[in-house]
């Protein structure tokens, strides 16, 4: 042995969590540096402010809390926008690094592949959480801050649920980014996922309800169909919440369903963990 052995880096046992956090940290730093965070926050804030200011005009100071109206409007915005942002952010995660040549380098380091997947996910979730909280928070504060604790609690729950929904689509996008080799293919899959879960599924569901007259379907089947789509689970969760339920049509549906908020949160968590675990599995077995 040469004297190199003394000066060489002392190899430590690879611990998954700190490596994942290192990768998450880089993801966040890059997100801020390439203006992703800025653009997302501004977009969410601008749309949220528009909805908040337009939405609070008709109700004025009577009836439901003005913040509840904002909460409901923003929940509808989330269903369309947050999955899209999440997919745009995550479809590049693995396929993009592979194209730039940095994936080969990253995996030659003492890093577990599970840590790479987990780190990417955590970093992007932090970016999304930052943008959503700040963007929506600005809109809520624009309406006023002295609006009652219950309304603020409902608002906070909606923001939390939105981040959870974002997590679902981050995880789906990450899976797409892992199973394909090309970034452009991953992008195509991401758009497909968005169209399916956000638009097509609900249109088909609505068609089914109309065709059957809405009453002949057993409620268990309706619950299952709602639970199978994370955006519907989010819809039930936020639009059926106390204080906002009477503002929305789905609030009435929420009254009848067996899907309680804990179940809905579990559904969203499962939709996050499932694709993430699958992505980690596929990635661990992948040859480069």
């Amino acid at each position, binding site marked *: *042995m*040469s*004297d*190199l*052995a003394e*000066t*060489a*880096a*002392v*190899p*430590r*046992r*690879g611990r998954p969590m700190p*490596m994942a956090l*290192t990768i998450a940290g*880089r993801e966040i*730093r*890059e997100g801020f*540096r*390439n203006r992703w965070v800025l653009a997302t926050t501004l977009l969410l804030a601008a749309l949220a402010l528009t909805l908040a200011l337009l939405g609070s005009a008709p109700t004025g100071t009577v009836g439901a809390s003005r913040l509840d109206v904002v909460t409901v409007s923003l929940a509808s915005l989330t269903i369309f926008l947050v999955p899209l942002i999440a997919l745009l952010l995550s479809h590049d995660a693995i396929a993009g690094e592979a194209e*730039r*040549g*940095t994936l*080969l*380098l*990253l*995996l*030659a*380091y*003492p*890093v*577990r592949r599970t840590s790479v997947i987990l780190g990417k996910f955590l970093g992007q979730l932090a970016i999304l959480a930052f943008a959503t909280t700040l963007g929506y928070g600005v809109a809520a504060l624009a309406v006023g801050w002295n609006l009652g604790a219950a309304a603020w609690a409902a608002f906070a729950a909606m923001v939390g649920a939105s981040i959870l929904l974002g997590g679902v689509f981050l995880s789906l996008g990450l899976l797409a980014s892992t199973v394909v080799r090309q970034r452009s293919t991953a992008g195509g899959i991401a758009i497909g996922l968005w169209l399916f879960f956000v638009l097509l599924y609900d249109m088909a569901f609505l068609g089914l309800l109309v065709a059957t007259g809405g009453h002949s379907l057993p409620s268990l089947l309706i619950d299952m169909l709602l639970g199978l789509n994370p955006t519907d689970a989010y819809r039930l969760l936020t639009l059926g919440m106390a204080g906002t339920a009477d503002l929305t049509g789905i609030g009435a549906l929420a009254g009848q369903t067996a899907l309680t908020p804990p179940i809905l949160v579990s559904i969203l968590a499962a939709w996050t963990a499932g694709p993430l675990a699958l992505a980690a599995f596929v990635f661990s077995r992948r*040859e*480069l």
Partner: protein
Amino acid sequence: MTETTVSLVGVTKRYGAITAVRDLDLDLHSGEIIALVGHNGAGKTTQIKMMLGLARPTTGAVRLLGTDPTGDGFAARAQIGYLPESVSFHLAMTGRETLAFYARLKSLEADCLDPAFAAVGLESAANRTLGTYSKGMRQRLGLAQALLGRPRVLILDEPTSGLDPALRREFYAIVARRAAEGATVLLASHALTEIEGCADRVVVVNCGTKIADGTLDALRATASLPVHVRIRTAGEFEDTGWRRLPDGSFETQVAPHDKLPLLAHLLADPCMIADLTVTEPTLDDLYAHYLQREAA
């Protein structure tokens, strides 16, 4: 004392119907600079991926610092340095941020960064974003990354393609210092001329098979390529065995061991010769020779 740091035994790697590496035996030792030379697609990068544990051999065994790189021989990875071909780091990040990330992945302290920048001559550019770096600077940052933690095995894939000769020499000087300290250095390249004068040992691969392995001098001796001698005559000249060129000079080819006797014969009568040029076979000739021999 030299030890075997990387070893491939009977390694074959197939991707579907394509055989990227065929029945390869290769041992790399500490303190050695090895040039792995072959065309694009000859299987160089596949070999490197197997050494790093990023691809599994279809048959055969790969050992890296005594462990199986695909298995949980995880610790060995902290002791290797790797520079992939055409890597592009995030352009909006600074050099320091980029290198700090890789240092953390190797569990190194942040105080290793300044010496790392100094080693490749980038200390003044460390805090600039990579968007402002030239190609040579980016490649030097890539080398700095590979040198982090004083690795025992350094694997550089096409490290100098696109660099100017001065930069290339500087690059090899850094690498040679590491080899002198006992590290194994593997340089993959598509041309022998790229690695001229810097490798102790040359391994030529073609279509996934090793077709030559030895020092450059040994390869030259085995190939025994003819030397070209060209003369311009001053007087009468017996031109048997010589080819007359359009400009009036003569040229012939001799085997290396006939070169000196021929020169002695020509110079015996110095008045006869106005000028003399001896052209040794170039590295490209040598490389072409081995590839042709394989094709024949």
